[in-house]
């Protein structure tokens, strides 16, 4: 029997010890009318060999197209060492470190992770992860409402240049708690927020301002000005960042005079494969003063009975298993294994390595933009400084172009026209350090054919 070790003899002895005539008798407390005989809709078992063949067929059907799509998930090289260690059974098949003494490996790794993320974002404390970047933003908004006791409005300003799905998720998750999201338009010329939309809210009770850096169009927002506006107007600042960009860009803790209050984002660029959208992990860092309002697991260093250092889950009084209906969040399980990958990734690359990856991604995106805008009917939409994504304007519908590119083995980018109709036929493209000059030439060639 697959994965069940019992011999007939075991079963006989065990039933005798129990004093039950059969395994079926163990289910006698379930009302007979409810018990089912079989699961007809489930196919018969496949052997490991058969299921392996099936999965390879399915995988081959989708193939390995050349990818120039980002929009919140980025294809980076993952050093071989990362997943070789992540999939060790001691990490892979352990659970939440409830028994700290038997989980020091996971706990110490998480403490190291918290240290790295706090430093990278320029903040004081980090939790041990949330589900993904989008849900982390939802949690940050709820946290801001708890942390900003003087603000009664639960009103949050969100730029339209934020990843629109992040806003969808924040709305869905906070729906029952009466938060109000006001969407601020971006400047049509620059693709960034600019100062004017904020000024309409001067003097009003605003709980928090959200800003994404780089924004959804890959462009750099004037985060210093936005941070200072938030501070002057007594609003908390929630930063949404791509952690890789922080190898190059000013960390949120240093934005404006005071810095951001809560920093969130998706950790996927750090050693986590694209894998159809998950599992990734959300990160969250904040100021020490807000730590008791932070959701999720937090690891602390302490000492044992002999005075030796050790690690344990701490500040659990915030959490659902203690506080129940008054907890900071219902989150319980997070994304530990992906944090394991990211911690190993950050350790292997160090700051110098991350800078290399970030710089190469930016350079290759510039090369890509230069190559594609040589084609008639393709223009760069926004000229300002960017990280590793760019908006292109096409002379025809992006959906048709993307489908035609897919036929040529190229995943060509993200169609912005549905969520941003005002941008017209806009396409968001991305290149990372994994795209060579030859890859970019291949895209250019395919695009030329499609745009004929």
């Amino acid at each position, binding site marked *: 029997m*697959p994965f069940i070790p019992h011999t007939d003899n075991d079963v006989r002895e065990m039933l005798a010890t129990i004093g039950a005539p059969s395994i079926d008798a163990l289910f006698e407390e379930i009302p007979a009318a409810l018990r089912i005989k079989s699961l007809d809709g489930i196919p018969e078992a496949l052997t490991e060999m058969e299921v392996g063949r099936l999965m390879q067929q399915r995988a081959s059907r989708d193939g390995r197209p050349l990818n120039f799509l980002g929009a919140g998930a980025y294809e980076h090289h993952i050093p071989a060492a990362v997943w070789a260690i992540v999939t060790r059974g001691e990490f892979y098949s352990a659970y939440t470190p409830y028994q700290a003494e038997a989980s020091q490996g996971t706990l110490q790794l998480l403490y190291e992770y918290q240290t790295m993320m706090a430093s990278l974002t320029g903040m004081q404390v980090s939790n041990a992860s949330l589900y993904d970047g989008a849900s982390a933003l939802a949690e940050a908004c709820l946290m801001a409402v708890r942390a900003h006791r003087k603000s009664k409005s639960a009103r949050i300003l969100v730029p339209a240049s934020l990843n629109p799905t992040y806003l969808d998720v924040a709305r869905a998750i906070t729906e029952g708690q009466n938060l109000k999201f006001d969407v601020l338009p971006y400047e049509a010329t620059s693709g960034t927020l600019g100062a004017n939309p904020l000024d309409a809210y001067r003097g009003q009770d605003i709980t928090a301002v959200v800003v994404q850096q780089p924004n959804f169009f890959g462009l750099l927002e004037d985060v210093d000005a936005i941070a200072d506006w938030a501070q002057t107007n007594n609003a908390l600042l929630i930063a949404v960042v791509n952690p890789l960009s922080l190898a190059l860009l*000013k960390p949120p803790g240093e934005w404006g005079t005071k810095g951001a209050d809560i920093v969130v984002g998706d950790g996927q660029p750090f050693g986590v494969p694209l894998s159809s959208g998950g599992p990734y992990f959300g990160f969250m860092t904040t100021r020490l003063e807000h730590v008791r309002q932070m959701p999720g697991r937090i690891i602390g260093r302490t000492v044992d009975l002999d005075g030796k250092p050790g690690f344990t889950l701490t500040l659990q009084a915030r959490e659902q298993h203690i506080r129940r209906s008054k907890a900071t969040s219902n989150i319980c399980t997070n994304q530990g294994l992906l944090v394991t990958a990211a911690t190993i990734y950050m350790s292997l690359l160090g700051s110098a390595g991350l800078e290399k990856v970030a710089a190469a991604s930016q350079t290759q995106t510039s090369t890509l933009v230069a190559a594609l805008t040589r084609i008639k009917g393709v223009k760069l939409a926004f000229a300002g400084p960017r990280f590793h994504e760019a908006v292109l304007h096409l002379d025809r519908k992006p959906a048709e172009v993307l489908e035609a590119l897919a036929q040529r083995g190229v995943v060509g980018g993200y169609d912005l026209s549905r969520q941003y109709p005002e941008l017209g036929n806009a396409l968001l493209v991305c290149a990372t350090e994994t795209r060579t000059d030859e890859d970019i030439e291949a895209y250019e060639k395919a695009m030329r054919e499609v745009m004929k």
Partner: protein
Amino acid sequence: MHEPLIFTHSRTGRSAAGQYPHAAAAEVPEKFRRKQRAALPEVSELQAVRHFTRLSQLNFSIDTHFYPLGSCTMKYNPRACNQFAMLPELLGRHPLAPESASQGFLACMFELQEMLKEVTGMKGVSLTPMAGAQGEFAGVAMIRAYHRARGDMDRTEIIVPDAAHGTNPATATMCGCTVIEVPSLPNGDMDVEALQQALGPRTAGIMLTNPSTLGVFERRIQEVAKLVHEAGGLLYYDGANLNAILGKVRPGDMGFDVIHMNLHKTFSTPHGGGGPGSGAVGVGQRLLPFLPIPIVGRDGERYRWLDARDVPHTIGRLSAFMGNAGVLLRAYVYMRMLGRAGMQRVAEYAALNANYMLARLQQAGFEAAYPGRRASHEFIITLKRQAKQLGVNAMDFAKRLLDHGFHAPTTYFPLLVPECLLIEPTETEAKEELDGFVEALVAIQREAEQDPAKVKGAPYTLPVRRLDDVRAAKQLDLTYQRG
């Protein structure tokens, strides 16, 4: 055994990043530029590999130890599930890739939805929730949306049993509901009379785990379902204990309107040291319009994403893409390997192992919290007598078990059973392992009688001894500060 922090291996100028060829300088205007590098470690590849390998060796895990953590279903995670979910094409697939280049992946997801419908008796499934708690959120949010769509605005009360997992009341609060607790009877069943008192025109629904967190099957479930429905409420099934009934009875048949499944429990995806989980939700007819998106649909032979255009009343998106796709692939492979018959064996052997351990422990003099009841896939031992007579409590027993090479059961949950151990062996453990665990508990009992201080000082053989949690919370040390 002790492994220093990785930061102590760090030396300026050392790097494992030599494998990266591109080195063009970035173009970042001065005002956006980072001035000081982050304090990440600077180590060689070998140093990193050795450090994290050593850290891994400080963990207990299913692959190394019996891990009978009650309510967590720590069963074996077949390696094939991992290998086939990590085929290069699947790892490389971008979540927003065109549907035409995603038919293989979408086929797996569609079939997973269909299989989960079959095992739960529900009418629709969405795979997007990223953990059990997010599945709970989706469930309660759908219940709220259902009442609101009917103009029934006052239904904001969620009833939970006092034995419920903490996520249940926390979820209800997140959804803007108030929580009404209903007590359990001494035999472990819900107090149906108290439930009747709690039901009314403000009832949105009830959240139940069945078998309950007390390790027994809720025998009056049909009556409970009838009462809740008659009062205008809906029934939410918390799938934490689905392993106990897989292929034996289906939540849909019991009368539940919505269910979340913990794929990381019942369908054996790895727990990963605290995630990723996956909390797929299933619904009956009434809640179909409210399912979270995206969902995988099929038009003829072609699979496609269903979004807000197809599900206009959806509660929305809960993740940036479609949830923990890689976890879903592992669950899919697991279900295909078990097949129809294998899935029914899950509950059978999980119940056999639990009832066997319960019988052996009772014969050895341990006190069951619910004697006379069949165990589900787990059961509760209470050590209140030991705590009172010997001064040795459930935590002490748990810590001493670690010295015997067993991960401790869940302790102090459910909250209403004093000094409890919630023990869940799962179907993948062999009889010898169960016997070894029983013998360890018996040995600890003997030791507690002869030398209680010894038990209270446990553990002795692990990387650290018992940790000072009070100090951890009072003198916060959450990041390493370079000295």
